[in-house]
């Protein structure tokens, strides 16, 4: 890991460590080191630094909510807002436990997109009617309920090394 003009640059070893962690974050430093042919202390140092600089944000579990017995519905909500209020609306949405992801997009009108989960259609509607529509600056809302999920995965930087700042060692 190198720094150039305040930009963190990862080298190939860092990326391989990240790839290993994305596959299984519970594996030991020794296992990762063995796989990559480097010392476990090197793996430890690099992981700690990537944690310190926020490259590794957290370690979490991917849960299959359906198998866990949750019968939730997911919806994608597009909130059209007054540009002056959009930041506040987005911040409020971020605080709601029903909202999993929040994005803004500048199309013809300022739009906030959010992924929302709810127990059923009625609770989804109640959440939007009671907690989203009344927010100052909300102009209108379009919601689509997800009926089938075809793909859900995390972004894997190892598949797109050209998209990150890779520092190549002069060896």
């Amino acid at each position, binding site marked *: 890991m190198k720094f150039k003009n305040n930009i963190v640059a990862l080298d190939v070893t860092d990326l391989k460590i990240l790839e290993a962690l994305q596959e299984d974050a519970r594996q030991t430093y020794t296992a990762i080191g063995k796989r990559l042919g480097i010392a476990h202390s090197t793996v430890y140092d690099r992981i700690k630094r990537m944690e310190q600089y926020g490259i590794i944000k957290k370690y979490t579990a991917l849960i299959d909510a359906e198998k866990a017995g949750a019968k939730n519905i997911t919806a994608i909500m597009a909130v059209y807002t007054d540009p002056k209020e959009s930041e506040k609306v987005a911040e409020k949405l971020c605080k709601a436990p029903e909202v999993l992801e929040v994005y803004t997009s500048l199309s013809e009108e300022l739009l906030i997109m959010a992924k929302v989960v709810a127990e059923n259609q009625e609770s*989804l509607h109640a959440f939007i009617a009671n907690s989203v*529509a009344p927010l100052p600056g909300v102009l209108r809302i379009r919601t689509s*309920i997800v009926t089938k999920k075809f793909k859900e995965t995390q972004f894997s930087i190892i598949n797109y090394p050209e998209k990150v700042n890779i520092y190549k060692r002069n060896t």
Partner: protein
Amino acid sequence: MNVETISKILRTVPREKAFYFFTSIGNYTGVSASSLKEFTEKINEVNIKSLEFHLYRGDFEKWINEVLQDEELAGEVRKLQKFNLTSDALRNQLSITVSRRLKRLTSQFSPT
């Protein structure tokens, strides 16, 4: 009905208690009403789909009863569900029912 009760029904409620018109689950039209007077105006201009959506879910009567606290009007609106009205017939009937009530309450009300 005393002046205090009428005044309560005719008051403007805070935005979190307003009625928000949707056309279906999660689809907000951008139209809302914070008082009986505003509600009367908005039902004449909102998308007809919204009136159909809310009437048959019982949302209008619930808001009128729980927020405006007008049991009588809530009852009259509930009765409209029985007629299976749609489109303009629904708008007209709802508008007549709510306007008549508003007129009656306003004529009895003389703020001090």
